[in-house]
């Protein structure tokens, strides 16, 4: 079968487009952030960094590592926001389970007091049921943030800009929830019970 090779110029354009899309968190299911959230640094100056997303990997719904390369935007909050957006895009195969339904997006993100992340979600994040589903959704985001950014100690989850008492009728989301190492696969838990940031 004959294939047409792209011109060098077109290759650069395609590559830049793909990298931009990834940097904007527009993955398989995710929604691209607004222009204001997009990285402003020139593309060629962006560093790629390995991040770890924590998704359920089996029927026990314990979270396991899913490694991705992401651009480092040079702004801590933007890096965190991109991480959550990337998380909501879901894993690609590899036996991982996506706990959120399709079309869930990050509406807003900010950090309070330097250690409490506030994650504002949009989309059908409250559809479905079961403790396991709710635990995987909530701790998937919390533990992923804390795993990659050690100074994040807890996460407050909002839905459509509003405080919610619970997502699916079990977990108390009226207050920030701390990182929970018990949700991690035993093979990746650290002995000190802390997050994984700083390992890479």
């Amino acid at each position, binding site marked *: 079968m004959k294939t047409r090779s792209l011109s060098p110029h077109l290759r650069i354009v395609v590559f830049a487009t793909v990298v931009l899309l990834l940097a904007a968190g527009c993955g398989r299911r995710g929604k691209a952030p607004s222009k204001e959230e997009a990285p402003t640094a020139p593309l060629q100056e962006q560093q790629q960094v390995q991040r770890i997303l924590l998704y*359920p990997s*089996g*029927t*026990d*719904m314990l979270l396991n590592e899913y490694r991705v390369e992401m651009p480092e935007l040079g702004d801590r909050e933007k890096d965190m926001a991109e991480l959550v957006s990337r998380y909501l895009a879901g894993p690609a195969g590899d036996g991982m*389970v*996506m*706990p959120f339904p399709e079309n869930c997006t990050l509406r807003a993100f900010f950090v309070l007091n330097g250690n409490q992340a506030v994650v504002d979600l949009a989309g059908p994040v409250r559809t*479905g*049921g*079961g*403790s*396991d*589903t709710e*635990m*995987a959704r909530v701790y998937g985001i919390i533990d992923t943030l804390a795993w990659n950014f050690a100074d994040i*100690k*807890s996460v407050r989850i909002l839905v459509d800009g509003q405080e919610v*008492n*619970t997502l699916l*009728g*079990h*977990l*108390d989301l*009226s*207050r*920030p*929830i*701390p990182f*929970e190492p*018990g949700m991690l696969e035993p093979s990746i838990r650290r002995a000190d019970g802390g997050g994984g940031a700083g390992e890479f």
Partner: protein
Amino acid sequence: MKRLLIMLIAVLFVAQAVSALDLKTPKGTLTLASRSWSGVEWVCGSQLANGLGGRFAKDSVSGYPVMSMNGRRVVFSTTSAVASVDGKILKLKHVPQEESGCLWLAVGDTGKLLSEIYGARIAIEPPRKSQVQAEAGSDGDKEGQEPAVSVDVAVSSDAVRLTLTGPAVTSATVRQRSGSVMVTLSGARFEPLSQDVGKGVVEEVATESGRHVLRVNLGTRFRHMDRLGLRNPDRLILIFKGEGQTVPPPSLEVVPQGTTSETPAMPGRGASPQAAPRRTSAFDVIVIDPGHGGNDTGAIGVGGIREKDLTLVLAKKLASDLEAQGFKVILTRNTDTTLPLMERTAIANYNKADLFVSIHLNASPARSARGTETYFMSRRATDQWSRQLADKENAATGGAGSSDGQDLKLVLWDLAQTAHMVESQALAETIQKEFNQLLNTGDRGVRQAPFVVLEGAQMPAVLVEVAFLTNPTEAKQLEDPAFQDQAANALDKAIVDFKNRYENPIAVPTP
């Protein structure tokens, strides 16, 4: 001028005896009951409120002690060292204690509270040590060397429960004589106590023999004594039972099984008062919570089966099993009705349940997920929330203040379960064991999570995820009445087993 007077009050607050403190006020001397526990001096806060023209009462809904003074409303927690003054959180040094009709406040905390109430710095001097020791007896020198054992007296209409808490109390000797029971400590002393109970089952509880002995004078209605020992902390619990009376009072609105009322046993919900079941033992009231309901369908399983329907079926079957064994069972809902999560816990608290069991069915994006898991409250989350409470208090002390409704809610409800987590864990493990043995479902183990429905429970509380609606095999089983009976039976057996372990967990020496 008013502030000056209040400051004078504080400075002249001087102990005169171990059992009373005199408070000099512009209107005269106010004598308050006082006592010493574990080296801390306590005053009767209820008397303090009344003496200073305030009012002390129990909140009609939450049951928490509330003091009204100088136009301020103070809500106390009796499980955490915090109080709320018009919604502003104050961290106390010691947890207020309810006993003998008093809300006991540590002397140091009393000064802090009065400072907040009157808006002036008030320091209260504790009783002089020499006076305390002189009152303790001729061998008072040894008192400081021997650990103290506290005695809590709880009185219900047909029973009196003594909770003795302190080092090695479970090795105390309990001797029943004609008309009295003597509890003798070795190497420890009881904290001073002389209480006229006067309920017919027990007449009086008092320490004697240098406070190494606790004497319980039995009343004419006394019939039987149960005792049990518990660890972490060491506790010896003595339950004196009478002839048995109908409880609770008519206003309690118990909804018995088989009724069609949509409202469970809560005040002000309009349910018709029903004949109260007879109390059969000191551990006998169980609240079962069928998860979800009404607008909240919960998980939808294979074939469209709904979690809210099956949890109700299982809860009714379990209630029937437990009632057949003499338990008083209250369902948070017995129809398909919407019920807020915190209201479910409130029903258990209001009815002074001994256990709270919330029944759920699981769901997972991984369709092959199967098995039972049982949750109790997350220590990690409650620890963090406690720290946040302390941080808020520190901010408030620094003048920033903190008075939103969330704080008050935190004090009133959210940390209640922390006092029962050891028992909750034991109950969760017992349930898992029974499910593994009886149903041979996949053992997903005991887990911890900050679940809304658990955190406000003032009794051992668990949430059971019986099986997965999203697993085709388990969904089919869950619709099978025979499997439902087995699942209810597993829960019933676990609860009975827990009751037996709770009442007889370790051997208590007998003479």
